[in-house]
């Protein structure tokens, strides 16, 4: 198994944190992982993206131009990356910041109104955790229960209340996925 996941959005949406979280979670499950944040020229213009590679064997290229799955947090990212997802891949979209839906029919498209959900649930800064919860619960890219049990490890050094908030937002996402996807 080797899967590459692209996460893309605005700086400040917690895009890199999503990638880091996935990286840690996959590592705790004993997979090989590589995490590459957007870097250099890519960083300009307020966009951020990262690529996480999860594999059982040795990872050759931690970079890719055709990820198996993409988590898309805003419209510019959809415009830029829709065409690149592998045929048959998965596209997870923050519906709140995307005006048009993807045109490709060969992808599994999952959407959720992230900004609205974050507001309703009272998770101002935890929107990325809702996304992660929904994404992991639905795709099983890593085991959702293992992840839930590993929050203390993943957020090592953070205050207990902060960890708890993140866990709540994550669970909120799981429930959304189970009810809607």
């Amino acid at each position: 198994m080797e899967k590459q996941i692209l996460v893309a959005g605005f700086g400040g949406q917690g895009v890199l944190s999503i990638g880091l979280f996935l990286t840690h979670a996959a590592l705790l499950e004993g997979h090989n992982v590589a995490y590459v944040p957007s870097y250099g020229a890519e960083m300009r213009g307020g966009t951020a993206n990262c690529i996480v590679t999860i594999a059982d064997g040795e990872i050759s290229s931690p970079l890719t131009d055709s990820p198996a799955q993409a988590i898309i947090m805003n419209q510019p990212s959809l415009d830029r990356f829709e065409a690149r997802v592998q045929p048959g891949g998965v596209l997870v979209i923050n519906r709140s910041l995307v005006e048009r839906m993807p045109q490709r029919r060969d992808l599994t498209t999952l959407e959720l109104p992230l900004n609205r959900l974050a507001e309703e649930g009272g998770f101002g800064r935890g929107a990325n955790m809702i996304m992660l919860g929904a994404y992991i619960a639905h795709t099983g890219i890593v085991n959702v229960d293992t992840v839930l049990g590993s929050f203390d490890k993943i957020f090592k050094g953070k205050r207990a209340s902060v960890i708890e908030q993140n866990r709540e937002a994550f669970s909120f996402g799981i429930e959304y996925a189970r009810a809607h996807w």
Partner: protein
Amino acid sequence: MKGNEALAEGAVIAGCRYFFGYPITPQSEVAEYLARRLPQVGGVFLQAESELAAINMVYGGAATGARVMTGSSGPGLSLKQEGISFIAEAELPCVIANISRGGPGLGGIQPAQSDYMQACKGGGHGDYHLVVLAPSSVQEMMDFAIEAFDLADRYRTPVLIMSEGMLGQMMEPVEVRDFVTPAYEKPWAVTGCAGRKPNIVNTLHLPPDELEARNHVLAAKYARLQAEQKRAELFMTEEAELIVVAYGLLSRVAKKAVADLRAQGLRVGLVRPITLWPFPDTFLEACMPAARAFMSIEISMGQMVEDVRLAVNGRAPVDFFGRIGVVPSPREVRDAIEDVAKRRGLA
């Protein structure tokens, strides 16, 4: 662990307790990590007033026999060249990290491998070489840092670790190696001459025959390094007709492209130089019987390709593909390789 942190922690594991540096992106993280870490292990982190000062602090530190290190990037590495030439001549062991960026001039912090010539062909004045190691993973950032100190002591030479910004930012799991630092006798160190004749660390040789003799001593050491330390990783090179040469993070992109093309039936293989100096030409030589063409892929306008041409020595065509400021994607690399294969009548 992040690449830059793995490199810094590797130095600590190797017993390095002294780091002299000056901030520059994308190297500052190495310095910042060691600013926190070295005091915990009784070491010293010192921010010098410039790279010029930093490398001379390393010169002094290395002369005491301690394991010392510095790091920089782009313009900072350029400033260090005078000091590096002195350190190489004085045969002092030390480790220098180049978390490289794009040039010339101020350039930018984008990924680049355009300091290859500076690293491998001198950089400073005089007849000298550095041992140059090129890690391609976060694990190797740590392992090579550890090994660099060993090579430095064993051969009494400065060792340069050639990384680049993106590898520094990348995160991969790292297995921390059990490592016992071999203790090297350093009878040449300046430590105060109580109980022995004074030691002198010197690079000035006014009598012409003395200067030439010194250069022969250095040349003999470089010959020894060439005989003993050429290293490369071979991937799918058996019966490969087209040999791709790439190093660092880019070599992993190339590996993917090569594997894909092999699956399509193209007889292509990859040689990844691990030591950029001494350049692993023997590994290319080993591919010669089957190889009908070579190709160097770099994040530069074409630097290592010259060493590939020297190794091939006219016996096969050598092509080049390069970009600056971005790590080319697997598809781009695949297309470039296919292109060459077609042009050379191999596909």
